[in-house]
């Protein structure tokens, strides 16, 4: 009984990774040049942006919250970092400024949600627009070229055959996965998402943890913005539009519950990889970009319908 339950559990957890494996196999057989090392590198690099943000979005969703402002924070942190580097010539100051922007935006989100008890959807819908506006205001809507010494290494340095962002994203996934599964912070996050009132009465400091989750989310977004700016060697205020939807889609695709209380890093990894692979394959197959939207949405819908069917059966 126990081993069977354990096996089912493993299958449930690994289910989406299995789907990814089949998908990757199919793509490498039927999509020309999918399996080339250049393409795989491009795939992983493009996936890393969503992957970074998905790490903390996992915490946000698992605690029963929601964050729409991530795309804006990524863009704003990139622009602010670039502006500060341009004006001071210091890479370190630029990085610090960008992280400060992300942390501030995240803490504002967290404070409003946790202490003022405003619905996270509304809260982050508002900050999404405010922060996007700030990104434009920072340099009058124009993108900022970055010439600061050493900064380009962040996005282009290579390690053991892969670009640095891919390694950093993998590291973040392992680290945040550990935090969710093996620390009081992670378990409290799931408890809050599962039953907020029970969590409070069980002695969990609900507000502080929510604040911390949003703060972390902001920091990670800012870091993602820096990596992106380094790769593009410029801060672009209009970048990362719709990133929030991509990230949330990936999480849900993997099996993270939107109503909170359920989620694992394995699910997020699977969701991010599946979504990235589909996108990559469609580009290689020259699928019209308008149709790519339709395909992505359909996959998400199919995934959640499948999930509902599976849990009901």
């Amino acid at each position: 009984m126990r081993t069977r339950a354990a096996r089912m559990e493993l299958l449930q957890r690994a289910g989406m990774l299995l789907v990814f494996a089949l998908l990757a196999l199919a793509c490498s057989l039927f999509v020309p040049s999918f399996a080339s090392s250049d393409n795989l590198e491009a795939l992983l690099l493009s996936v890393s942006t969503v992957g970074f943000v998905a790490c903390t979005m996992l915490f946000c969703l698992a605690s029963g919250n929601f964050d729409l402002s991530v795309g804006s924070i990524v863009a704003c942190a990139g622009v602010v970092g670039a502006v500060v580097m341009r004006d001071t010539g210091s890479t370190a100051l630029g990085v610090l400024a960008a992280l400060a922007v992300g942390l501030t935006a995240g803490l504002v989100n967290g404070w409003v949600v946790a202490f003022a008890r405003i619905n996270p959807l509304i809260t982050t819908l508002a900050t999404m627009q405010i922060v996007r506006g700030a990104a434009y205001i920072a340099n009058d809507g124009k993108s900022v070229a970055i010439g600061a010494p050493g900064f380009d290494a962040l996005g282009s340095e290579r390690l053991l055959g892969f670009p640095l962002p891919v390694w950093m994203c993998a590291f973040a996934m392992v680290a945040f996965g550990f935090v969710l599964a093996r620390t009081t912070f992670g378990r409290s996050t799931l408890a809050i998402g599962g039953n907020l009132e029970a969590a409070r009465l069980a002695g969990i400091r609900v507000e502080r943890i929510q604040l911390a989750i949003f703060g972390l989310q902001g920091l990670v977004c800012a870091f993602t913005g820096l990596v992106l700016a380094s790769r593009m060697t410029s801060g672009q205020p209009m970048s990362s539009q719709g990133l929030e939807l991509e990230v949330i889609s990936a999480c849900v695709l993997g099996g993270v519950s939107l109503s909170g209380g359920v989620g694992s890093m394995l699910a997020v990894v699977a969701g991010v990889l599946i979504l990235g692979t589909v996108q990559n394959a469609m580009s290689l197959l020259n699928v019209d970009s308008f149709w790519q939207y339709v395909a992505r949405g359909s996959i998400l819908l199919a995934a959640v319908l499948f999930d509902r069917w599976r849990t009901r059966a």
Partner: protein
Amino acid sequence: MPPTELHLRFQGVSKAFGAVRALEDVTFGVRAGSVHALLGENGAGKSTLLKVLSGAHVPSHGALVLGGAQRSFASPAEAFAAGIAVIYQELQLVPEMTVAENVFLGHMPARFGLIDRAELHRQARTLLERVAPEIEPARRVASLSLGERQMVEIAKALSRGARVIAFDEPTSSLSARETDRLFTVIRALRDDGCCVLYVTHRLDEVFALCDAATVLRDGRHVKSHASLAGVSRDEIVRAMVGRELTDVYAWSARPRGALVLEVEGLAGPGLAAPITLAVARGEIVGVFGLVGAGRTELLRVLFGAARRTAGRVRVAGRELDVRSPRDAIAAGVALCPEDRRKEGIFPLLSVLENLNVSARHVHARSCGVLDGRWERENARAQTERLAIKAASPAQPIATLSGGNQQKVVFGRWLAGTLEVLLLDEPTRGVDVGARSEIYAILYELARRGVGVLLVSSDLPEVLGVSDRVLVMRRGALSGELARAEATQERVLELALPRAAEGAGR
């Protein structure tokens, strides 16, 4: 008097969920014009049987016979149309809509798709006449008390012409007066020839209200009594638990120690007058009061879940300044909340997670990294100590019975230092067998020097387990009785509002 015609019959009803057999070959009949009790411990299959009746579950085998014809319902709508209404503990009303709209939900009188409001209210008033004439059809359901909402639910059933009405533990959150009211209405339904199926854990109600009774155990039909005349309480309890059960409460005197909880002039939301009380080590103090008397509010203020506006609290001699439950827990105060599903358990998480949630941070290594060995060891120890019936610590708590869920909520507090245990309705929805186990745990904790403050609306329970009884009325303490002098009458006298104070809550 009551016609003897069998109106409803369960014919060999079985229902399996995967490998779990929730019902097996259940056969019994219910007469029209009678109130038929459906009894059994948690997990006996009562809820499943109600769901078969309501069309929420399709039986794997067997059928329902209704008025002589064999019926099977594929959905609740079909059962409803056939005149069957099930009134669950969680009422199925829309709080933001009016009473009339709720009564006619799904079949409002309309002309060309426009709701005829005057007709709606007129028809609703006619139906409400029969159950609760004082409820205005235009009121929002959110503004009604729980007892009133139940009346609306009954009117809703009548609006569909229901001839079979099943109640699932309808009195579990009603005050004594509301309960009386409900019984009057149920008797009126019976006299109109309705077939009433009544699920409860409270045997007093069975003898006060019901004409016949059926006992289920482990999904099987154990016994049906066509008449309750000459049937003893013990006989029914034996049928329910399948073994001899002596005194459920099994109280015995305990040594008492120094004061462990001292409360002076406590004030907060829901408390009308400052509260002063004390509990000694080893003492179990029961708190009784009607719904809305401030019992739950008292516990919440003590626990830091509601803001304390005045007063002093000392725990084990140390002044306690609680701003949050966390502070209370650190001082050794624990609360098992009233609404287990809403405030007690984390339904999606495992038994282990639910057991460890409150004490794990003390045992975690640096940076909050969990001590896996402690986590497993503590879960195992508490599961064993409380005899929690779970297949493994990884089992989701939602799949446990109510009694076992409650034991897990209990077990949460046993890993840390425990000085004062606050209990709010600890045995609501818990069957007889698990109840006596929970009382035994209480006695053991008290013997080890824990002070227990127990709030319950089950008066026999308060009298059965308490060393001393405090009575609350309208947000204030209205009296205190030693165990020897605490009788049902004296407690009720202190709990019921005085005539001079006016009626209502």
